[in-house]
């Protein structure tokens, strides 16, 4: 379960208090705008100073921030807002300067009319005033504030509350029958001048005279607006940057807070931080044969000291380290124990379910063998507390085999599946993967981790 713990603008990193979030419609209230062409952030630039012969050579700069009118400019695609005739008089407070344009947009006016239309009818029913009963459904003060603010604006939008239903059922039925039909201010579907081109004929003309596909605004650029806008890419207006939120997370079953970030917007510390990585062992996978091949190549190249064959080296390394279908490769899994107690790990391979094979008789393209007995991993402790470690080649478990010695160049003994090495708080386990003949692409490993605490020494 995820709740919002704060909002911030991803561009100016300004922390927005949750009360003004709703007022600003979840957008940044300062000068942060998004380029309609490439979704990059826009910068405010001044127009070029007036160009007469003397100012070219004179060292006097006319003004520190440049000349008005200011407009927005994208660094990446070089779009600027003069193409849609958006200029500003001052370089700061751009959102305020745009405020009156936004308020007179057709969708805002339509929304105001809708609110005025429904207000008298919903105010008549008494259930709209019983707000406190619904607010206890909200655990988070932010959502409770948001919902009460919403209800204040649009009376009658109350959370469904079974207590009040029986009481005001009659009132609501009476009110519903009295609501007259709503006439929209602007008929939907008609082509009106502001969003030119939402009609049929104008669009067809535009399409007939298209020169490149880039002239039409793409779907991603248009669906952010709440109203249909014109299809021309030249008409796209810059949007204010939407705010990002910092989230806090709860356990879904017992509702204990797991993650609670700090109040400051950009700090990465947390007040409460219960992360699975602190309890589960860290797992890394490696292919020893690939590593050995890379080392051989690197050694030979370092001795030769030739850098021009770097590309050829990489290809050779990739070829020898790659996994060829139809063969068997051993791999190493290293488990690192983060806890201060020793843990036992048990591995289990789930037979892979081939996704949606049409005929159903297709075998899995690979099979993985892992040791299935439980193996312990020692506790985490400071470096000096470990005794001198011997490389133990796992003599417990069900694997007997001659404990051969490891040769100098790393040729392992015949056994490769099982606990290979136990050192500090890391245990390396070997497994084997058998590739079928039709195997292609990368091998993905899905893991499921379960954690069991066993009480020790109960009286």
């Amino acid at each position: 379960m995820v709740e919002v713990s704060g909002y911030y603008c991803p561009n100016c990193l300004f922390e927005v208090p949750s009360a003004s979030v709703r007022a600003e419609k979840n957008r940044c209230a300062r000068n942060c705008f998004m380029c309609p062409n490439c979704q990059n952030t826009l910068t405010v630039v001044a127009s070029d100073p007036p160009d007469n012969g003397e100012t070219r050579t004179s060292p006097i700069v006319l003004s520190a921030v440049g000349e008005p009118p200011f407009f927005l400019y994208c660094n990446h695609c070089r779009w600027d807002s003069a193409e849609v005739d958006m200029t500003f008089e001052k370089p700061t407070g751009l959102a305020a300067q745009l405020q009156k344009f936004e308020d007179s947009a057709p969708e805002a006016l339509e929304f105001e009319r809708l609110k005025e239309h429904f207000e008298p009818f919903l105010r008549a029913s008494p259930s709209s005033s019983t707000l406190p009963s619904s607010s206890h459904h909200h655990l988070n003060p932010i959502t409770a504030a948001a919902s009460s603010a919403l209800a204040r604006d649009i009376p009658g939008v109350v959370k469904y509350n079974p207590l009040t239903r029986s009481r005001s059922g009659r009132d609501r039925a009476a009110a519903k029958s009295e609501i007259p039909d709503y006439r929209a201010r602007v008929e939907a579907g008609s082509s009106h001048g502001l969003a030119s081109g939402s009609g049929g004929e104008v669009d067809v003309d535009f399409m007939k005279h298209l020169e490149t596909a880039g002239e039409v605004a793409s779907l991603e650029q248009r669906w952010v607006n709440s109203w249909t806008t014109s299809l021309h890419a030249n008409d796209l207006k810059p949007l204010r940057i939407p705010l990002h939120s910092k989230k806090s997370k709860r356990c879904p079953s017992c509702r204990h807070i797991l993650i609670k970030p700090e109040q400051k917007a950009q700090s990465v510390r947390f007040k409460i931080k219960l992360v699975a990585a602190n309890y589960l062992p860290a797992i890394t996978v490696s292919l020893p044969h690939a590593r050995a091949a890379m080392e051989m190549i690197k050694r030979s190249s370092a001795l030769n000291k030739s850098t021009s064959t770097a590309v050829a080296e990489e290809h050779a390394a990739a070829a020898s380290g790659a996994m060829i279908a139809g063969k068997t490769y051993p791999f190493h899994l290293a488990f690192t124990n983060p806890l201060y107690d020793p843990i036992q790990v048990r591995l289990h391979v789930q037979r892979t379910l081939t996704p949606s094979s049409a005929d159903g008789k297709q075998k899995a393209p690979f099979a993985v063998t892992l040791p299935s007995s439980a193996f312990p991993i020692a506790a985490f402790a400071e470096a000096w507390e470990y005794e001198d470690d011997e490389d133990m080649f796992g003599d417990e478990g069900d694997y007997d085999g001659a404990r051969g010695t490891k040769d100098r160049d790393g040729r392992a003994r015949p056994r490769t599946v099982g606990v290979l090495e136990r050192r500090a708080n890391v245990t390396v386990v070997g497994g084997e993967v058998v590739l079928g003949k039709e195997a292609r692409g990368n091998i993905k490993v899905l893991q499921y981790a379960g954690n069991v605490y066993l009480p020790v020494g109960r009286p």
Partner: protein
Amino acid sequence: MDNPIYYARAEYIETDTGNKVSRRATIAGPQNIILGGKTIIASGAIIRGDLRRTGPGHAVVISLGRYCLVGEGCVMRPPYKTYRGNFNYYPMKIGDHVHIGSNTVVEAATIGNHVDIGKNCVIGKFTIIKDCAKIADGTIVPPNTVIPAMSLFAGSPAQFVEDLPESTQEMVEAYTKNYYTRFQPMPTER
């Protein structure tokens, strides 16, 4: 997990604070560059410490933190701006545990701690990258971008993809420390 990353012993200079600088890296103006301890500068990297702002006294142009890695072929250049008719370079400040992938061009103004930058990226001028961010391989970050903390950015121009998990800081710290311990000179053969 110890698969060591070997380098030719003669190629790298190791300082007393544990920094490992490749002789084949081009370091201009080394007196203006500060390396926190245990930082690795790989071969072919170009670090321009000579582009300092005009003014008297000792200036720090580029400062790196601890356990950083500047990949092969990287270019690190401080950003510049013309303001009120004056042209000036601005110092570049990079935090701890920052890995920069190979062949990346970095002109950012500030990079926070525990940042992971992929290879073949271009980071534009005056970019501000906050802590624990991750930039995917091949990203083009336009100038003056702000990359908020714990976010993953990819694409050209760099777009926000997703928020990173809360354990990112420990993972990156463990990875950079582990990388430094694995970065060993080649054991002498004969």
